């Protein structure tokens, strides 16, 4: 967090122009304030300066008492020079130009200059700066060094050592940002090379970022290798929909095909990073298994059909279907699609059977965190984690579930010394910087939370209505908790110590997949309330628009069936027709056998998806739909931030945006004027779900908007869950 003392301003002059900058700011940043740029290779604004490449040399002088400037005889690196009062910087003197030329000449001595072949060619800082500042010819006629070419560091990252200029950005990224420390410099001098440790792969979850931070073509993407040159590509802004973080990305495409994904700066979400899942996980967009045209079943096989025929078959079954029809969605469709889909079901088909959740526990309206405790399930924006003094990760591996949140939390520790408490049954990547790791036995989640709650209630005191809870957790003394959960009592006390001043909870909805998931979530909420941290409680969604589906209410209506009920209904004949919107029960539903029986027995199965799934083979009608990059729309990420995606490439084949399909179906039923654009649908969504009024497309630019909190702040209520550990967890010593 920035404090007042850091904001103290000093006056420096840059090329004789006065500028006031914060004291201690690196000069390389200060010169940007007057629109100048100092050439850099090793410096990166998000990492600590090292001064390795010497490219950012500037002439430095000090203002003397008589007003004259005394210039130092030798230049200094702007990336390691903090601003002090009276500093005079010259970025463009004859000497500096000569210095830069010299530095570049040295860098190029060992550089193979295979730019035409190199994947970085065309967007390479070394290439660009050589053109601007460098020599036009080389004086080096000797044989250049020969080193590893295209060495696979991992499945995704390739290392070309000849091109490396030893700036250390990749090594520092793994040390400072991703924290896995997978890369290090081996050897010294001309032989110095970034490498993984002996006999290991570069197995970071964030390895793709090293490709982007590399200022030359030393680290390149194996997926993108030789697929295109930067000037062949069209680049459009997009949002990643691989998980619920909702990172901003650059979507590079060529003749309608996705070529690569790069991180786009969004300070509120991903800063500029991407995870490997987001960077390399979009190949399905170009898959030959993409659905391109509506299919209808004729006897044993599916045949291609027009949209009109598909609509006719759908309406014949779903129109007026009432409780006998049902819909299941995944967490991937856009807000607009989900809203119109819900309206189609509740108002046109008059069916309350609608759900988007695939967990073991599907809490009803009164059993959710909001219903039971009166607090919101998501309270903390990703960026706000940076300033949290204590953060409690509970339940899973945050780096796997919420990679970008994990980077933020790590930054909170790295920069601001946040105390991170990690409670997970298995080793996680957050362990290496955790203040305290609580490794509990699977099944003993509730007991562990009970133990922590007991300690926190002792400390905090004065939480309204805590007496019953105090009794319920009284038996979980640290020693008893150690017996039940396997967490050392000392570690538990240490964790409670750190959490006593209030903490941010970061858990995900996958907790509902635990056998006693509902109890665990209640216990977790109780814990947050006991430390008066209910305003920092977060139970995050894990899919791109799962939070949006919750906000819009793609949930069972009054008397409606939830996911399990719908699938059981399909099996037993209570539900005649099922609509699967971008989801595959075989993959998603915890009980695969029930999913199989349901899909085999349901009379009419409508599959609407991007790609052929397993369910596809049981379908009566198949509708293709657009991927996120092929349709206008907006997504609500896990921190309730609504971000807009525009159409980047054309839909595949005859595919139509989902919201358009739903509005065309509505038109066939009612004859009312349908919405003509996603923007109109967002307007309608704003009047149906008022929190979405802020996200009308007119003000949905840049970082997106966070949905406002509904209603006033209610007093958080405690609830009494079953704190017992699941059977068997005690024996698993």
């Amino acid at each position: 967090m920035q404090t007042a003392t850091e904001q103290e301003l000093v006056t420096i002059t840059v090329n004789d122009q006065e500028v006031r900058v914060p004291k201690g700011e690196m000069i390389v940043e200060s010169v940007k304030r007057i629109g100048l740029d100092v050439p850099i290779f090793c410096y990166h604004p998000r990492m600590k300066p090292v001064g390795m490449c010497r490219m950012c040399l500037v002439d430095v002088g000090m203002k003397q008492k008589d007003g004259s400037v005394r210039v130092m005889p030798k230049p200094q690196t702007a990336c390691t020079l903090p601003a002090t009062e009276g500093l005079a910087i010259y970025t463009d003197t004859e000497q500096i130009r000569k210095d830069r030329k010299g530095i570049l000449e040295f860098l190029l001595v060992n550089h193979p200059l295979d730019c035409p072949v190199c994947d970085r060619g065309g967007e390479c800082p070394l290439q660009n700066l050589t053109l601007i500042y460098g020599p036009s010819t080389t004086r080096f006629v000797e044989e250049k060094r020969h080193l590893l070419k295209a060495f696979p560091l991992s499945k995704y990252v390739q290392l070309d050592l000849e091109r490396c200029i030893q700036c250390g950005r990749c090594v520092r990224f793994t040390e400072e940002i991703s924290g896995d420390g997978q890369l290090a410099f081996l050897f010294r001098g001309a032989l110095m090379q970034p490498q993984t440790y002996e006999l290991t792969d570069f197995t970071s979850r964030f390895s793709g970022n090293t490709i982007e931070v590399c200022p030359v073509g030393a680290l390149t993407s194996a997926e993108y290798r030789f697929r295109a040159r930067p000037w062949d590509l069209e680049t459009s802004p997009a949002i990643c929909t691989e998980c619920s973080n909702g990172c901003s990305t650059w979507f590079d495409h060529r003749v309608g095909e996705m070529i690569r994904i790069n991180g786009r700066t969004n300070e509120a979400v991903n800063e500029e990073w991407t995870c490997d899942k987001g960077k390399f996980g979009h190949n399905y967009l170009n898959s030959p298994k993409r659905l391109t045209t509506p299919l209808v079943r004729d006897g044993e096989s599916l045949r291609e059909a027009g949209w009109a025929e598909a609509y006719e078959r759908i309406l014949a079954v779903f129109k007026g279907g009432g409780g006998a029809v049902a819909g299941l969605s995944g967490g991937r469709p856009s807000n607009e699609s989900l809203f119109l889909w819900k309206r189609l079901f509740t108002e046109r088909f008059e069916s309350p059977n609608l759900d988007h959740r695939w967990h073991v526990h599907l809490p009803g309206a009164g059993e959710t965190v909001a219903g039971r405790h009166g607090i919101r399930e998501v309270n903390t924006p990703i960026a706000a984690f940076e300033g949290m003094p204590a953060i409690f990760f509970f339940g899973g591996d945050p780096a796997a579930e919420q990679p970008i949140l994990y980077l933020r939390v790590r930054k909170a520790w790295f920069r601001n010394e946040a105390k991170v408490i990690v409670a997970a049954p298995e080793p996680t990547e957050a362990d290496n910087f955790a203040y305290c790791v609580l490794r509990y036995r699977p099944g003993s989640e509730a007991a562990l939370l009970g133990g922590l709650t007991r300690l926190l209630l002792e400390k905090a005191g004065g939480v309204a209505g805590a007496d019953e809870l105090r009794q319920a957790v009284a038996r979980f003394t640290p020693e008893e908790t150690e017996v039940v959960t396997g967490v050392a009592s000392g570690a538990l006390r240490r964790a409670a110590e750190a959490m006593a001043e209030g903490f941010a909870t970061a858990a995900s909805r996958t907790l509902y997949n635990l056998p006693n998931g509902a109890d665990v979530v209640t216990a977790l909420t109780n814990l947050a309330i006991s430390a008066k941290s209910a305003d920092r409680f977060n139970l995050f969604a894990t899919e791109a628009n799962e939070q949006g589906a919750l906000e819009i209410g793609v949930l069972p209506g009054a008397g409606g069936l939830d996911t399990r009920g719908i699938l059981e209904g399909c099996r037993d004949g209570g539900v005649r027709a099922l609509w699967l919107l971008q989801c595959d029960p075989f993959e998603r539903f915890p009980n695969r056998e029930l999913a199989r029986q349901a899909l085999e027995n349901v009379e009419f199965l409508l599959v609407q998806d991007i790609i052929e799934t397993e369910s596809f083979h049981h379908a009566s009608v198949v509708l293709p739909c657009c991927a996120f990059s092929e349709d206008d729309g907006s997504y609500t990420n896990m921190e309730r931030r609504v971000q807009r995606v525009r159409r980047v490439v054309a839909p595949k084949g005859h595919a139509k945006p989902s919201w358009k399909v739903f509005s065309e179906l509505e038109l066939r039923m009612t004859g009312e004027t349908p919405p003509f654009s996603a923007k109109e649908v967002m307007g309608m969504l704003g009047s149906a779900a008022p929190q979405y009024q802020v996200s009308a497309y007119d003000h949905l630019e840049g970082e997106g908007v966070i949905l406002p909190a509904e209603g006033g702040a209610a007093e958080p209520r405690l609830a009494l869950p079953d704190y017992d550990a699941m059977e068997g967890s005690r024996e698993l010593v």
Partner: protein
Amino acid sequence: MIKEIWSDVVKPILAGLAVTARRLKRDKSTVFYPEEQREQYPRTRWRHVLTRYENGLEKCIGCSLCAGACPARCIYVESAENTDEERYSPGERYAKRYEINMLRCIFCGLCEEACPTGAIVLRKDFELADYHRDDFIYTREMLLEKMPVKSDR
């Protein structure tokens, strides 16, 4: 009167005919085109050719610089990686697809200028007319030079 006719009419005609008669002795500059062809100037830029090295390997490395330099944006390059079993060019990279839309090309020669290996050159073959639009998309196979006859591979 007669004198005037002689000087103003007949004499100029005869003088003109004399010029014609003198010219008859010179070589004719018209050629019987399809059968005969005139030698092109050395810097003529017509049909593109993707050249090869003497050992038969393609000079083109698929770097797409020609496509970047092309003001008509008529070149499309897709590259791939050479393997030891399947080697098209020396080095790591070769052009898997190389297409020039000859309808769009303005024969400016900037591609030739941009090419770092001297692979694409504009040669003197100017007979580029065809009947179908599709036939004007020249593919890599059409553009590549024939394998050198003397093959020592």
